[in-house]
């Protein structure tokens, strides 16, 4: 398990096996910090991965650069044959960018259980 946490932002690999990676994001996923998510997702999109899931339930704010990092993670996952899904942010401010960009219709998004 690797974790980075500065101010209110945290990216953590919650579960990783040879076939599944679940990454949680808390706080602000914005231009200032999204490179950390990008590094983590790139490091886990290896051949043999079957599923990547990004848990955004505790994300407070997401901008277009953060959205771009998620799109890249989805494309990288698909490139190695893995599925990609997102747990929806519970915060409406964090969900807004998905609605405005229509990416809520592109990503496989589900509610937190």
């Amino acid at each position, binding site marked *: 398990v690797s974790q980075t946490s500065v101010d209110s932002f945290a990216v953590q690999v919650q579960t990783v096996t040879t076939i599944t990676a679940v990454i949680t994001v808390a706080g*602000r996923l*914005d*231009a*200032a910090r999204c490179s950390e998510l990008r590094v983590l997702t790139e490091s886990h999109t290896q051949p043999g991965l079957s599923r990547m899931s990004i848990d955004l339930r505790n994300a407070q*704010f997401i*901008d*277009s*650069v953060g*959205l*771009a990092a998620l*799109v*890249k993670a989805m*494309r990288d996952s698909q490139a190695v044959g893995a599925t990609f899904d997102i747990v929806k942010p519970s915060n*409406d*401010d964090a969900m*807004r*960018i998905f609605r*405005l*960009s*229509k*990416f809520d219709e*592109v990503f496989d998004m589900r509610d937190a259980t």
Partner: protein
Amino acid sequence: METMSPLLNIAADLFAVRELGPWLHATVSSTVPEFSADEIVGPIELALHELCINIVEHSYQGAVGSIRLSGARIGDQLVFMVSDIGSAFDGDLGNVRDTQEHTIRGYGLAILQQLASRVDYERVDSANNWRVAFALPSATTSTTTTSTSTTTNTISTNKGMKQ
């Protein structure tokens, strides 16, 4: 202008842009106290955040600089002025990326335009001046697109504040 907000002067870097949120809460609370800042700041913050990120990445391109913001209530709108002295904006506000085109980057200004009632850009001497208006929640009045000079780039849409 009915009520001016305090100015916000931030460094042109990605972390400094985070100062927008607290400043917007204070600005909304002081300029339109009849509205709950928690209810209306969200879309405004995202819109101005995207504009400031665009300024950091494209106007200053990593160079040292600053971004100056002010806000005021004008009638049934909240109007923000955003200024920098970086390179001139060379895009076309009337032709930013269609947000239905699912590519990775380039959404910032499209998001700004979706959230704002009206966005105007003008280059004056060495300064970039953006004027971004948001209709207050109860206001759904229409505005008319105008382009007043070759140095002014304007886009206008007819809508109230979008959530």
